[in-house]
């Protein structure tokens, strides 16, 4: 082959790759576009046949309604539940991970047990938990859901932080111990600061998991601490004339996740693969 035809083939190949990539882009992004665009349409535009692919003007009335009716408070509930449970899970989980890494506490069996908890179906544990919460009066309370979210995210935190702590050089801890620091001081003053990147990345994913959680919130909330995911399903109905609300509420809950995750591209693979891929 001459150089010219090699270059031509390469150009065609690249064009083909762009073509395929664009098709994929449409398939994966169009539904998200549709969700957001419905939230910005007027009712007439939403229930128009044939569907309107892009509205002439964007309007935010659908969002205004959510705030006026007080439905938007569910986003605040999600924020409180996910935020508090993430902080607690990060502190407890990192301490536990440190013990697993440095002292091999509980050995491999304990590690297997911890991670297996992460993989259990929520439905199998939610029923007994529900009965316990009814007994304790914890249903529809912040505390109840925070405890549950913390517990359910702990295996993930322990798992991820185990990987990050293994990366910390042992010499630093040893020299701190030699300098007379207690174990606790080493943990707070050496391990936590050294693992801060991992702490941050893990915290963000933990937060997103709790933020997006549905089944626990469905079972354990009534009126006081309804999360945005449950609120979205409240608008489903036989006649379902609440498309605007479904779309706007979903968008309100999704935008923060998109922003957070796009700031964290670097950690995305390690975060979702539970540490299977490093770097």
């Amino acid at each position, binding site marked *: 082959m001459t150089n010219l035809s090699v270059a031509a083939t390469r150009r065609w190949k690249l064009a083909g790759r762009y073509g395929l990539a664009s098709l994929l*882009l449409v398939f*994966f992004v169009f539904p998200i576009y549709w969700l957001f665009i419905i939230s910005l349409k007027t009712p007439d535009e939403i229930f128009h046949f044939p569907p309107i692919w892009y509205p002439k003007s964007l309007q935010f009335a659908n969002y205004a309604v959510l705030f006026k009716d007080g439905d938007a408070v569910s986003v605040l509930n999600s924020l409180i539940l996910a935020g508090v449970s993430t902080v607690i899970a990060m502190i407890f989980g990192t301490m536990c991970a440190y013990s697993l890494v440095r*002292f091999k506490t509980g050995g491999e069996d304990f590690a297997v047990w911890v991670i297996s908890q992460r993989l259990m179906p929520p439905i199998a544990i939610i029923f007994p938990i529900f009965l316990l919460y009814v007994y304790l009066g914890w249903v529809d309370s912040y505390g109840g859901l925070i405890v549950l979210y913390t517990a359910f995210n702990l295996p993930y935190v322990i798992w991820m932080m185990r990987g990050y702590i293994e990366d910390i050089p042992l010499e630093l801890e040893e020299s701190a111990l030699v300098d007379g620091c207690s174990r606790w001081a080493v943990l707070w003053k050496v391990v936590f600061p050294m693992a801060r990147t991992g702490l941050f990345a893990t915290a963000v994913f933990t937060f997103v998991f709790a933020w997006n959680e549905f089944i626990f919130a469905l079972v354990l909330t009534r009126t006081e601490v309804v999360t945005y995911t449950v609120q979205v399903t409240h608008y489903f109905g036989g006649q379902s004339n609440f498309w605007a609300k479904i779309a706007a509420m979903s968008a309100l809950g999704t935008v923060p996740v998109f922003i957070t995750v796009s700031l964290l591209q670097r950690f995305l693979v390690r975060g979702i693969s539970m540490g299977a891929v490093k770097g």
Partner: protein
Amino acid sequence: MTSASHADNSGGAHHPSRRMPDHNFRYWIIAPSVFLLLLIGLFPLIYSLVVSFQQITMTDYDTSFAGLTNYAQLFDDARLWQSIAHTLIITIIALPIELVFGLAMAHLFLERMPGRQIFISLIVLPTVISPVVAGATWRLLFDQRYGPINQVIGWFAGHDVIMLWNITPHLVYPAILICEVWQWTPFMFLILLAALSNVDKSLTEAAELDGAGFWRIFFKIVLPAIWPVMAIAILIRGVDLFRIFDVIWALTSGGPGTMTETISIYTYVQGFQQFESSYTAAIAFLIVGLMSVVVIWAIRRMGLAK
């Protein structure tokens, strides 16, 4: 203990933290986690076991010992086994599609090309959306009249089509699977892309020079190299698919009838709509039992905990 308290006295202000002795340190720091994990890892198990031997229903709080009645009922409950079958069908179809599709996409984006990072960032967005929101989104997309999907199909068909995606028996599974594949293929894609990027280039190039074809290189070199990561991705997705709830709740709620009822939906219905407490406990115990065996086997097999 005496030595610790002795150290306390002599150490004084220099060692305030000695009040918690270092030799128990490793247990102190796992204590809060263990306590919380027992709440979700052991309490439900014991409680389910106890309640499953009683006869508590919505109308009757009967805690007398019922023996294995509830477990015997499991075997006669056609709806339960159907729901397990539905779950397995969804898992068996969705998992390979996500895997193969994700792998193909990873190959497409493996080589550098301008704008690659932007493509990748946008394509992975569905994976971070809440599954219940994903279900709601597709519910809007699938609407027979105002949704864009029937519209596009209509263009190809040449006339308006009315397909009731979340009601018609032969369309509900495709609808669920499309939504599922849409949301989770990017997950596979991203992980496999990272795994493929870490494959030693010199090995594949050497094989290429020796005249090995694409598939030969893939099965002999690439696949073994990415397998450890791929296995974990399959495990995570497999387990997630087996407990699928949110998407179906949003799209069909298990309908029409009980056609798309998965094990999670069925357990929810028994426990929280029909309040068959003791029977639900038996189902929960069955699920935990089944999953524990599979999950712990898989974790050990992959050497995940090492």
